[in-house]
């Protein structure tokens, strides 16, 4: 089954097959081999004692029994035309393409077979596989495990009376939604296509954008029970082979029941599972994935998950958006800078406000201090309580608006806006400036392109508030130092999370932090250790960007 997908994937580009099969590292290949063997067996149940027999009826019953005689397992017996030989097909009707089964397997054998097969054809088996079945992929199998696994993925098993072996024929049907717009990562100027749940469509979306024969899709199977395909994608002559091997090694080393989404897979293969910062990037945008691949990163797709996993990732990479590359570099830099400000505001603004108002009012201009004091006069709670109250409310609102169906979602925003904005102030529970601060914080968190990252800022907000109210600005700075050390120590697949902010390298810094001016875009970011270091030719005079 693995081979079926591999073969299908390799059809996309010339020279591709050698890449996936031939030239990978030896260790890598070895581990892959072991994994393949492991994955050909089904966890829990043992079918070792069941063997294919010469009797067609027995075979069909055995296989059906092995799969608990479920209603959707279809078996059809028929006679090869003009002969006394019976054959049978087994498939699962909802995941196999019944048209293919009938058109390309049953039809040729049942109707047209007499044209070719003699009654006593000694090489009947070979003739069928070579001349009769017109389906795209056929494989001879003997083990029941393999057959069942294939049936479970939508392939069809063809069995012929008198043989202790049969064929697996690919008849998979992919049921899924159409390619739609990316919901979580909308973009103004970028493409409007997002990944779907079918790995086949997703690979197609990437292929269409990157017509490079060096693009490698390495297929692995994951999960004791789910047996889902995981595709590791990278560009062979750009990505650092160490990182690629590391990714593949980690995926193969997993022994889990199964994952349903790329995010889950990411949590399983991440460097430090306890990190509150996302150490992998999830994206539903094919264009962003392609961009990541060209930066020398590795993408991971999983069947049934509408997201690609991009690794390694660093903090500045998280703050990038696709739109950055669609605008003039000055505008793009400003946009990106505003996102950094958003990140900072979202994490620290409430803490700084609390620290300044309750410990160091002298830092602010006198008039402002008076205004704040005036607005806070008669408030029952200290600033920290107000802030936590607002913070909890906002967190609940955000959570509620995700859970509610879109139709009712409107109500939440109205109720939330009115209750928090107006009523809380009028009732004298929360000061108006605190409302402004909370709103700014929330807006700041919305500017962060990565959802997990904005959740991380939410997680550190309240600890910082507590530090601020107990130790003032000194506590906040100590907290920031701690956070900085924590981030500096994080690694994503061997790449430090803080790179390229440290160590300094001007070309990386310029690309990642601010601009995307062409003259600074000649080299690939070096911190991902790409093999092919140069992106494009040196900017020339008169090509529009260079001067």
């Amino acid at each position: 089954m693995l081979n079926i997908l591999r073969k299908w994937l390799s059809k996309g580009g010339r020279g591709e097959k050698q890449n996936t099969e031939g030239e990978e590292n030896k260790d890598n290949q070895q581990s892959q081999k072991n994994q393949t063997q492991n994955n050909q067996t089904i966890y829990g149940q043992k079918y070792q004692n069941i063997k294919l027999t010469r009797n067609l009826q027995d075979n069909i019953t055995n296989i059906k029994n092995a799969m608990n005689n479920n209603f959707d397992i279809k078996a059809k017996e028929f006679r090869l035309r003009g002969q006394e030989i019976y054959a049978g097909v087994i498939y699962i009707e909802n995941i196999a393409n019944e048209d293919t089964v009938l058109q390309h397997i049953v039809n040729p054998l049942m109707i047209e077979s007499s044209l070719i097969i003699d009654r006593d054809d000694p090489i009947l088996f070979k003739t069928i596989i070579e001349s009769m079945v017109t389906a795209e992929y056929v494989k001879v199998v003997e083990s029941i495990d393999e057959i069942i696994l294939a049936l479970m993925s939508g392939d069809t098993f063809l069995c012929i009376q008198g043989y202790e072996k049969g064929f697996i024929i690919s008849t998979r049907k992919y049921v899924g939604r159409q390619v739609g717009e990316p919901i979580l990562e909308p973009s103004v100027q970028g493409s409007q296509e997002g990944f779907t749940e079918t790995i086949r469509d997703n690979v197609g979306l990437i292929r269409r954008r990157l017509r490079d024969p060096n693009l490698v899709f390495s297929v692995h199977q994951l999960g004791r029970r789910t047996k889902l395909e995981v595709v590791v994608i990278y560009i062979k002559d750009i990505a650092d082979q160490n990182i690629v091997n590391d990714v593949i090694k980690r995926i193969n080393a997993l022994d889990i029941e199964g994952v349903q989404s790329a995010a889950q897979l990411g949590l399983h293969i991440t460097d430090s599972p306890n990190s509150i910062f996302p150490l992998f990037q999830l994206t539903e945008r094919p264009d962003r994935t392609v961009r990541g691949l060209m930066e020398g990163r590795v993408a991971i797709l999983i069947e049934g998950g509408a997201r690609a996993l991009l690794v390694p990732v660093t903090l500045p990479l998280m703050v990038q958006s696709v739109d950055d590359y669609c605008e003039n570099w000055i505008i793009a830099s400003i946009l990106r800078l505003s996102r950094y400000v958003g990140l900072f505001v979202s994490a620290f603004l409430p803490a700084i406000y609390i620290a300044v108002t309750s410990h160091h009012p002298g830092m602010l201009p006198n008039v402002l201090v008076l205004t704040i004091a005036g607005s806070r006069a008669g408030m029952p709670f200290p600033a920290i309580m107000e802030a936590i109250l607002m913070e909890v409310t906002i967190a609940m609102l955000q959570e509620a608006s995700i859970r509610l169906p879109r139709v009712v979602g409107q109500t939440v925003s109205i109720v939330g806006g009115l209750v928090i904005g107006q009523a809380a102030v009028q009732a004298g529970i929360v000061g108006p400036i605190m409302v402004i601060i909370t709103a700014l914080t929330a807006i700041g968190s919305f500017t962060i392109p990565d959802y997990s990252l904005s959740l991380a800022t939410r997680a550190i907000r309240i600890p910082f508030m507590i530090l601020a109210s107990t130790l003032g600005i000194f506590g906040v700075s100590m907290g920031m130092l701690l956070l900085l050390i924590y981030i500096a120590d994080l690694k994503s697949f061997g790449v430090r999370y803080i790179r390229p902010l440290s160590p300094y390298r001007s070309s990386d810094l310029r690309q990642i932090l601010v601009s995307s001016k062409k003259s600074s875009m000649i080299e690939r970011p070096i911190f991902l250790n790409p093999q092919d270091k140069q992106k494009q030719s040196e900017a020339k005079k008169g090509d529009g960007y260079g001067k």
Partner: protein
Amino acid sequence: MENEKLTTSQIFVITVFSILGVDVLVVPHNMVTLVDQDAWISLILGGLLLYIGAIPFLYLLNLYPDKDLPQIILQVAGKWLGRILLLPIIIFVVMYAGMSTRLFAQALKLFLVDKTPIWIMVILLVIVAAYVVYKDVHTMGAVLDILFPISIVTLIILIVLSLQNIEPDRIKPILFRNTKNVLKAIIPGFYHFAGFGAISYFLRYAANRKSACKSYLLGLGVPVFFYVVTTVICIMVFGAPPLKVIVYPTLNLSKSIEFEAAILDRLESFMAVFWISLVFSSLVLFYYSSVRNFSEFFSIPGKYTKYVILAHILMLPIIALLPPSSLYVFELHDKVKYMEVLIGFGIFPIVTVWAAIKKKRGMQQ
């Protein structure tokens, strides 16, 4: 990456931070007390002395490229004599780390958090520093990399903003009947550059040793420059006589700035926040050096280093809180710095010559 190395720029940052610490707050006061308005000349000469000390030191480090200072001393001078030579360095490093923490906590109490007790600040600073030392050298390098621009930009902003208050005449007369004092104060000027030896604990992690050595020599110039400039500015703003009674002139400097935009009323407490990054960085470097010293002195194997780090969490605050009042802090701080001369021009040359002879003999054999 597995074979992570400190880049040349990180060596530069470490060099700057190893010298540019809490001293930037007190340099003008200390020096002006000794030589009045000519303090800056002594500092420049002290800077020259720094290079005179640093270049042979670098030579010593290059004799043993994969060892750090305590290891070199133990190798060159042997088990017992080496430990005797190492002892003053150990005491100096740990005292310096403790004293600078205390000095800074005191400054913070004066300018930022007047209600928080000093011991809380000292302990917090030490614990956070312990956290980064507990991680590896490369994390340390990354953290210092981020803090470097913050600290330097703060210094530059302070200097630029102070320019509106200066009266250049206050620096005059230059060298008028003062030459003797200026020369006498070269050694105290050199005290403020204590910590140039901290590089010895990091140079062995450098990716490119040759350019690392260059950036070390270049990095030494940065603190000299900033000390001289802050001293000159302080003299020009306050004049020499008042400086003798201002304990933290650099912080007071920000107090004197009239901020036209009036976004922040008290710039000095705002500035004090940014000083934290500066002082913290130098504390981290000395913390790490001290941990290395103790580990080598007691031959503690690598896997027990974390206990040495933990022991420092206790030891450093005790040292820092030892002086009962701020008066004693300055006294002790000065005394600790005398040791720097002993180390820089006593122990280092002895070890260097010894090492050179030993190497030569080894070559001959």
